[in-house]
């Protein structure tokens, strides 16, 4: 499982189609991947495993999300005021 994820990350071109978000408005896709990245980090480091597979979500949200949003959310996470559940 992890080496296929590594291969997928290495061959990454752009975010693939996600059936959960089929319409033009991809806001939720961006936010969901951002949340999944942080949740994945938290879950895998709590289990003591390598967090490298979480890089997939990182790539996807970097593709999808506007930089200003990512910067704002990162600041909110550091300040502890991030509204999403991580």
């Amino acid at each position, binding site marked *: 499982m992890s080496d296929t994820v590594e291969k997928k990350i290495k061959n990454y071109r752009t975010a693939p189609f996600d*059936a959960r978000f*089929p319409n033009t408005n991809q806001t939720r896709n961006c936010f969901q991947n951002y949340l999944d990245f942080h949740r994945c980090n938290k879950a895998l480091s709590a289990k003591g495993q390598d967090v490298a597979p979480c890089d*997939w979500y990182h790539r996807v949200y970097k593709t999808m999300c506007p930089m200003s949003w990512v910067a704002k959310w990162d600041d909110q996470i550091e300040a502890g005021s991030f509204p999403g*559940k991580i």
Partner: protein
Amino acid sequence: MLGTVSRQLKSHPALVPLFVFIGGGMCMSGAYLVRLAFGPHVSWNRNGNPEPWNKTAPTEQHKFYAVNMDYSKLKKEGPDF
């Protein structure tokens, strides 16, 4: 009020298609709203069911009509955790 309407309709029967089409349009838009409300797009219960769109299979189609999209070939992308 319904009595007045039906009396006036009897004297102007050409107005019946108007009611039919307006009523049909209202029913169709209401039905689409109900379809969206029951779908996985909205989270109604923030504590019990916070992200219902995450509970669907990767091959499930939520759109009403999808052009040019083969849903049977999709699979879950990201790694599990």
